[in-house]
């Protein structure tokens, strides 16, 4: 007979039931501890998610709950796998059955060699504890630690509710730099300007128009600002190449027409010129010449003087157009001489020159208009607020950051502002050149000549020579320790920017240097 068994019950069976019960209780107890640890960890994770701005309230709470549940599950698994002390279970059953250590003794003495005595002990123990269920011996008790579980969760809720996430939201821009509405407005304006361009007459103009159309389509798609700027830069570079290839003048003839403001006889000519209708302008001049020859138009002294002044100003505006300038100056001289026939002849020659250069000037105008459109687009993309000193309408470079210099968003001069190597000594000087839109709007416009007639006097020294001397002096000072290393590179880039163009003809050396970058 098996001494550890009496009737249908046995020590092993009772112990098995107790073990299962204990595993379940361990799982519950450890899961509570896991939940407590998970609550603390979840609070930390949720708070870090919230404070780091990695997620919203929902994300933070979801992370906390996930950690909480994970720890609880781990605790339950660990509890179920925890080792179980049979003697402890047996003593618990003894206590529940008021068996006075009978069952615990039976468990320990089951393997005793005195089998007869062991049988007595076991049967006595089983008789006392058989009716006692495992649930009575091992009642479910939720650990006291469970009451602390809500504390970390409440702390997390307090953090989420009370601690704002603002500093992190500020670090990550929530909205794009250019809104879809702004893109749409830019696309609309650009497309409108595109429609106002004259019909292309050359393959290059057709290609250019296609590219501009592509840019307009790009604007329609709310592109990345960087992509749009890249495209604009590419097109600007192409315009510049075309302008050089076509030998187009830097200034538009239409702008030069603004110089014709005094003479009544030249009004039609000025009007055609302003509209870019150079053939018509030439026709106006030819008609004017004809009228003068036929005596239909007999200007008085004041009119001759007005014609002379207008033509002389126009000649100055056409500095890059030698032939036109020469014809213009001749006409001005003829008007100054108040010789009607001479003036008629000079106007006829000017008309011929204009007819000869009409296509080139029209191309030049188109290029200038395209460049103006791109500059305008670029300015709007840069979201200039007009707060900088350098421009009234805002410019592409200011970006609302105020004047360049210390504390600004543009590179400043810092200690290098005290540099004595040249004239660039004012620390508060606007370093950004004005970008003037050459696109003419519907209203009245005013132009300001950048160089006065008094300053027109050409320098006695070659620019390249002056530049070399300037750079030599600057390079010597750049080696001083007082010049920060970062600024040395900046200054060298500046000198590279104003380096004279070696490919330019010698006559151009006398021109004014390019503005500072």
């Amino acid at each position: 007979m098996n001494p550890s068994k009496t009737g249908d019950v046995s020590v092993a069976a009772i112990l098995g039931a107790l073990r299962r019960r204990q595993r379940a209780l361990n799982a519950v107890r450890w899961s509570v501890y896991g939940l407590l640890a998970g609550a603390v960890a979840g609070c930390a994770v949720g708070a870090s998610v919230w404070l780091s701005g990695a997620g919203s309230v929902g994300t933070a709470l979801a992370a906390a709950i996930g950690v909480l549940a994970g720890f609880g599950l781990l605790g339950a698994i660990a509890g179920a796998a925890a080792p179980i002390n049979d003697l402890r279970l047996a003593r618990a059953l003894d206590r529940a059955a008021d068996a006075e250590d009978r069952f615990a003794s039976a468990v320990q003495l089951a393997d005793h060699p005195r089998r007869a005595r062991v049988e007595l002990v076991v049967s006595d123990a089983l008789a006392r504890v058989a009716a006692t269920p495992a649930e009575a011996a091992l009642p479910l008790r939720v650990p006291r630690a469970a009451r602390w579980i809500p504390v970390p969760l409440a702390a997390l809720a307090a953090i989420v509710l009370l601690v704002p996430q603002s500093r992190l939201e500020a670090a990550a821009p929530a909205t794009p730099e250019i809104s879809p509405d702004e893109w749409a407005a830019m696309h609309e304006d650009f497309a409108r300007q595109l429609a106002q361009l004259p019909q292309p007459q050359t393959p290059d103009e057709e290609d250019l128009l296609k590219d501009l159309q592509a840019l307009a389509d790009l604007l329609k798609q709310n592109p990345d600002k960087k992509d749009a700027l890249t495209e604009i830069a590419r097109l600007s570079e192409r315009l510049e190449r075309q302008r050089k290839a076509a030998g187009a003048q830097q200034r538009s003839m239409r702008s030069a027409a603004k110089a014709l403001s005094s003479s009544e006889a030249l009004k039609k000519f000025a009007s055609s010129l302003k509209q870019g209708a150079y053939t018509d302008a030439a026709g106006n001049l030819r008609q004017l010449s004809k009228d003068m020859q036929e005596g239909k138009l007999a200007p008085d002294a004041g009119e001759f003087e007005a014609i002379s002044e207008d033509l002389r100003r126009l000649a100055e505006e056409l500095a890059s157009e030698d032939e036109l300038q020469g014809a213009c100056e001749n006409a001005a001289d003829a008007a100054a001489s108040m010789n009607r026939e001479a003036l008629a002849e000079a106007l006829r020659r000017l008309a011929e020159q204009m007819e000869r250069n009409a296509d080139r000037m029209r191309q030049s105008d188109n290029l200038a208009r395209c460049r103006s459109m791109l500059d305008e687009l670029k300015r709007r993309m840069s979201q200039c607020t007009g707060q900088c000193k350098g421009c009234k309408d805002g410019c592409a470079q200011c970006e609302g950051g105020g004047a360049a210099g210390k504390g600004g968003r543009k590179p400043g001069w810092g200690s290098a502002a005290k540099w004595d190597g040249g004239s660039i000594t004012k620390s508060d000087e606007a370093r950004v050149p004005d970008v003037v839109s050459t696109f003419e709007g519907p209203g009245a416009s005013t132009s300001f000549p950048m160089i006065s007639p008094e300053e027109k006097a050409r320098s006695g020294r070659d620019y390249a020579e002056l530049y070399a001397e300037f750079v030599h002096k600057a390079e010597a000072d750049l080696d001083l320790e007082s010049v920060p290393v970062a600024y040395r590179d900046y200054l060298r880039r500046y000198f590279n920017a104003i380096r004279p163009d070696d490919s330019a003809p010698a006559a151009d050396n006398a021109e004014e240097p390019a503005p500072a970058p």
Partner: protein
Amino acid sequence: MPEELSLERIAEFKKGYSLLSAEISKKIVGYREVIDQVLTAMMAGGHVLLEGVPGLGKTLMVRTIAEATQLLFHRIQFTPDLMPADITGTNIIHDDEHGGRVFRFQPGPIFANLVLADEINRATPKTQSAILEAMQERCVTVGGKTHPLPEPFWVLATQNPIEMEGTYPLPEAQIDRFLFKIDVRPQGEEELLGIIERTTGDAAAEVKPVLDREQIGRMQATVRQVMVAEFVQRYAARIALGTHPENTHATPMTRQFVRYGVSPRGVQSLILAAKVRALLADRYTVSCEDIREVARPALRHRIIRNFEAEAEGISSDRILESLLESVAEPAAV
């Protein structure tokens, strides 16, 4: 080989115990706990030291036990001039049948089943130690010859705790041989009324013998057959070790007031006495509660207190109390 433990033997044990207890109660009023402890010690085969002031009925109790058990009973009144030979016996010259003279051992009063050592602390240590061998080895050696004592053999000693003049405290070696030290305290009003009723009238209570020597021997054998699980043994060992100031199980009170803890003999006493309690509770195994129940009488006289404890009046019982509260049961729930 003794008969194996069985339900019948346990019933027999309980019956004999109950009979003896009831018979003693005929003459002894009250003192249920004292009687239980004395009988427990006797069933465990141990000696008992009864401590109490005179007139509490200690001697009467022992005499009554002797009457109820049909055992050979001797009483030794310990006095300062008592000699060891007066207890153990001695060799005296006898005339033999041939007219010659020979030395023959004359047994002393120790040769009995039940020896009452009355006021044992009045004898000198030399005399006290005369019964050392008898108590432990259950034999007496006189003149180089060892004489076994009859079985069963118990020494029930009494001593007066308050009358210290002219007394000799029992040496540790001897006091350790007592299984129990029982404090006999004055009784209450109802018990005193019963004493008056029974002892001042003309009708004396008669005590009949209810157990003989063989029966007692079987009962003692039954006690030895009770099993003790390892966790109960461990609990008893922890309690014993807790009385040692340098042990890890020692309580702060033990460390402060105890000079020496109990000996291994103390653990043996603990377990044996607990076995008796287990049988009386219809169990075949000893429980931790049995250990706690017998811990005070079994261990109180084995704890040697230091001067500080004596000066502050810290009793051994108080030290044991703190120990029982602090020592954890193995695998306690």
